[in-house]
């Protein structure tokens, strides 16, 4: 087992150095220096085992057995139709990365959107802006503890930066689509896209980030996103993880909020064989508001894991976290939500809830809410539940002429709809609801699954 882990680490380190010595495809010098540091950190951290507290429920052995090669630019053109399913409307501003590489032909962000998009890679070797470095610092900070964050930064093919200028109000949802195309016949590959977001003072941004890939392909995504929200700015961030059924997904999301800022995130996770997302939100100023919500759906032998950390460092901030899970088959869902309230963070108002709908006897949920409070004037609550469909609700629906199967579906969709209701943008909410219905349809194989109605 230990030997396996070692081999696997050496494999990725060797991949890194191979690419590094193969000059032509390299990143700009400043990025390369960061990546050298990142691979060293990865080397010293090593891949985690279930002996690590943060990974005790998440056995990554199947990932370690699959030696993934860093992805190369896709040979074939990707048809735009593949993406349409994830677009709120067909002319929405969209940034597409295929196997981790920026895909210019499929991307389009008109100037009227109000954002600046920068890319840092071998093609576009410009110097980083101050904003870029500040967002990158969040990923660097996450990589101090998380080997996947370090690996992601080391292996990244492209750094994409979304810069929202001071005072800009971006009302159009900006789409960032990560598509993995490697089919099962070729060598299994890993892509490592890096997304940076910097929202300037008093600006606002609506962001829809999607991870998806071929259903039957063996591939991996080790991604990282760094988000900085300056004073008075708002970022609404909706993330969809619908990787292919055999994929590995390890995602890092590191956010820093300055005073009076607002961050609302919704995460829909339903793909991958092993899918783990680590979210860190550093509250770095007074009067911030944070809403971190999500829904995970797991079936078959999937493992879906969310580790979140909200770090209250300043007074008078509020955070709300509601994660729900629909867990069936032989799948396993893990939720670990840590809220840390520093001594200085008086007046913190924090609420965390994790509710799980367990639809099969063979499925497992491990939920671990953690509240650590060092301030005395705070309002903090947390709770977790794991259970089946409410029998009283089922009887009530049946007593109104609704068949058993339809009643179960309705309660399940209601369970999901309760949390998607928090998505403020209506068009994105519709999109998310539709994706959920589609996923549940394939899981429960009911053809007449109704819609989610709010």
């Amino acid at each position: 087992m230990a030997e396996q882990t070692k081999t696997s680490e050496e494999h990725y380190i060797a991949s890194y150095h191979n690419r590094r010595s193969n000059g032509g495809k390299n990143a700009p010098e400043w990025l390369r220096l960061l990546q050298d540091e990142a691979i060293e950190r990865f080397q010293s951290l090593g891949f985690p085992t279930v002996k690590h507290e943060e990974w005790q429920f998440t056995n990554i052995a199947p990932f370690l057995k699959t030696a993934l090669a860093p992805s190369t630019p896709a040979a074939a053109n990707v048809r735009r139709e593949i993406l349409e399913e994830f677009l709120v409307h067909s002319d929405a501003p969209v940034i597409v990365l295929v196997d981790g590489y920026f895909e210019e032909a499929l991307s389009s962000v008109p100037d009227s959107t109000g954002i600046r998009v920068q890319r840092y890679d071998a093609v576009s070797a410009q110097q980083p802006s101050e904003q870029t470095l500040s967002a990158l610092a969040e990923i660097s900070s996450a990589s101090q503890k998380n080997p996947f964050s370090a690996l992601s930064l080391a292996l990244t093919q492209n750094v994409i930066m979304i810069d929202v200028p001071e005072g800009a109000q971006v009302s159009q949802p900006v789409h960032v689509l990560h598509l993995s195309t490697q089919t099962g016949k070729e060598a299994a590959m890993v892509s490592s896209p890096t997304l940076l977001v910097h929202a300037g003072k008093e600006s606002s941004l609506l962001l829809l980030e999607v991870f998806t890939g071929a259903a039957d392909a063996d591939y991996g995504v080790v991604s990282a996103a760094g988000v900085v929200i300056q004073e008075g700015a708002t970022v609404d961030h909706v993330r969809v993880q619908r990787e292919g059924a055999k994929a590995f997904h390890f995602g890092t999301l590191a956010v820093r909020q300055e005073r009076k800022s607002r961050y609302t995130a919704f995460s829909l996770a339903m793909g991958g064989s092993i899918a783990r997302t680590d979210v860190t939100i550093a509250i770095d100023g007074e009067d911030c508001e944070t809403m971190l919500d999500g829904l995970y759906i797991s079936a078959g032998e999937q493992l879906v894991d969310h580790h979140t950390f909200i770090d209250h460092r300043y007074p008078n901030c509020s955070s709300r976290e509601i994660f729900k899970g629909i867990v069936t088959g032989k799948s396993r869902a893990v939720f670990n939500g840590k809220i840390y309230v520093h001594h200085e963070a008086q007046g913190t108002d924090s609420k965390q809830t994790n509710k799980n709908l367990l639809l099969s006897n063979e499925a497992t949920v491990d939920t671990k809410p953690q509240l650590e409070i060092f301030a005395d004037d705070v309002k903090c609550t947390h709770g977790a539940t794991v259970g089946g469909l409410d029998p009283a609700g089922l009887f009530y629906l049946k007593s109104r002429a609704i068949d058993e199967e339809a009643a179960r579906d309705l309660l399940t969709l209601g369970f999901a709809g309760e949390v998607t209701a928090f998505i403020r943008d209506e068009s994105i909410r519709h999109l998310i609801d539709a994706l959920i219905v589609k996923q549940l349809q394939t899981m429960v194989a009911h053809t007449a699954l109704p819609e989610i109605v709010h």
Partner: protein
Amino acid sequence: MNDTQMKDEYMLEIKNLHASVAGKEILRGINLTVNAGEVHAVMGPNGSGKSTLAQVLAGHPSYEITEGEVIYKGKNLLEMPPEERAKDGVFLAFQYPVEIPGVSNSYFLKAGLNEVRKYRGLETLDALQFLKLLKEKMKIVEMDPSFINRPVNEGFSGGEKKRNEILQMAVLEPTLAILDETDSGLDIDALRIVSEGVNTLKRPDNACIVVTHYQRLLNYIVPDFVHVLVNGRIVKSGGKELALELEANGYDQIKEAATV
């Protein structure tokens, strides 16, 4: 007149019904017949089995039927699953309506109504047709249109939940409505609105069983028959005046008589 014809004439015939929950016998031989066009009141002290009778008729899975039978429109009601009973016109207005988070009131009602319509051989209604019908029905119980899109019963007050039950009854147009302590927790205005709703829905071809602890509701919904349930048995039946008698003398006299 032979047996078969007899059965067809009753809408509901309960014969020697015994039911238990978790091994404890609650109903201990209920006999009751209900015809189309009738309103029956079932009264009794707490714990007499009134609500159990209501739930058993609707098909609640927690109860075990140990003896007896229930014939509804000539069919063995106890063999039908709850959804089948509902499609065939049995409706229970719950004493404690259930909250269904994330499911809107209108979606829930439309799903139920369309199942009933399919069963009756009628065309299903689309969203617009249904909304029109729902708005009409909401007037009967004086419900605010904002309740259309709220999750079923979630955050409703006690009175709003009971009104919502009568709204569902108005939409589904049952043959046999069973109102389980619909008056409990209602103030006088809500009581009037709910009762008027029930009276509006009364037709020669449907029937109603009103389960209640108090006579108060029967000032508004006037029964043709009153039955007193004590210890899982009907110990006395009579006309509407029996309810007044109970109100004046309480249940104690009847209880004593029943235990002799």
